[in-house]
């Protein structure tokens, strides 16, 4: 920090120390407090910029009373498919926290297949035994024909 840099800071950010760059504020404040030459040289700049700061302060604004409600009413409703996709497939920065979601999404076809298979599996084995016996009988007759 030197006089020239301190002058540039005052010209850009004004006279208020709280508006000076955070990474240089300490050094700038110390220089201004300790260096009498800096105080003399920069007193005029500080006074000029103080008047600009005060003039800027006159421009106050307040948020509109109904703006919040207006924004909420104007929100487009997200389709449930989009919500499901957004939940199942988090962004890369969220992937570590929610890694199980894409895993769940990837395993859904497997789970669906298992459920479908389980629900269509027949428990009545009588037909299959009859088929088996028929096949065995056919095998015997074929063997007899072959042996003759």
């Amino acid at each position: 920090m030197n006089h020239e840099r301190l002058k540039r800071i005052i010209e850009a950010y004004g006279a208020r120390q709280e508006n000076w760059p955070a990474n240089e504020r300490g050094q700038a404040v110390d220089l201004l407090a300790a260096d009498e030459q800096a105080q003399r040289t920069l007193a005029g700049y500080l006074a000029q910029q103080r008047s600009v700061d005060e003039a800027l302060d006159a421009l106050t604004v307040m948020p509109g009373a109904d703006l919040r409600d207006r924004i909420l009413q104007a929100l487009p409703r997200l389709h449930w498919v989009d919500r499901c996709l957004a939940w199942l497939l988090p962004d890369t920065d969220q992937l570590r926290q929610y890694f199980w979601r894409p895993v769940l999404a990837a395993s859904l076809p497997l789970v669906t297949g298992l459920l479908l298979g389980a629900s269509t599996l027949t428990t009545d084995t009588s037909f299959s035994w009859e088929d088996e016996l028929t096949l065995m009988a056919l095998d015997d007759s074929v063997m007899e024909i072959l042996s003759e």
Partner: protein
Amino acid sequence: MHVNEAALIARVRAGDEAAYRTLLDRHLGPVTAYVRRMMMSAPEADDIVQETFIRLWTQAQRYDPAAAKLSTWLHNIAHHLVIDHFRKHGRVVTGVADDDVVAEDISLSDQIVHREQHDQMSRCLMALPERQRSAIVMCHYQGMSNRDAAVILDVSVEALESLMARGRRKLRQLLAEQS
């Protein structure tokens, strides 16, 4: 960034309106102040603020918490909407909104003085080139760091400081002429 802002954004991405309302309440005031000071026209400024926060709802997946603070991201959207508006419609000052000017708990004479100072400052600020005005509004009023403001204006910190210094010099000159 607020402690749970990343979590709130994740919920907004999944369509959680309660999380969205929390973020809206947190950022509506600063973003509105920025846009109104840039435009000096309350109805048009409110349209831009509305569009900014609708993008928070519809494009939350584009926000990267590691790259910027949410307030910087929202100011960036608002800033570019303002610039687009000026390009399309020109820089028209339709007047200052009454609800921006004075608090009602001060005397009438103080209200008149405050109103005059407010109008004078709004005229001077609107006379500045857009980039100088943006730089001053972001750093003086919004309390934004020089790095965040430089990112939004897509310039180096040195160039941002140059914009602010030239803007403040011009403001001083305009104020002197008017008084």
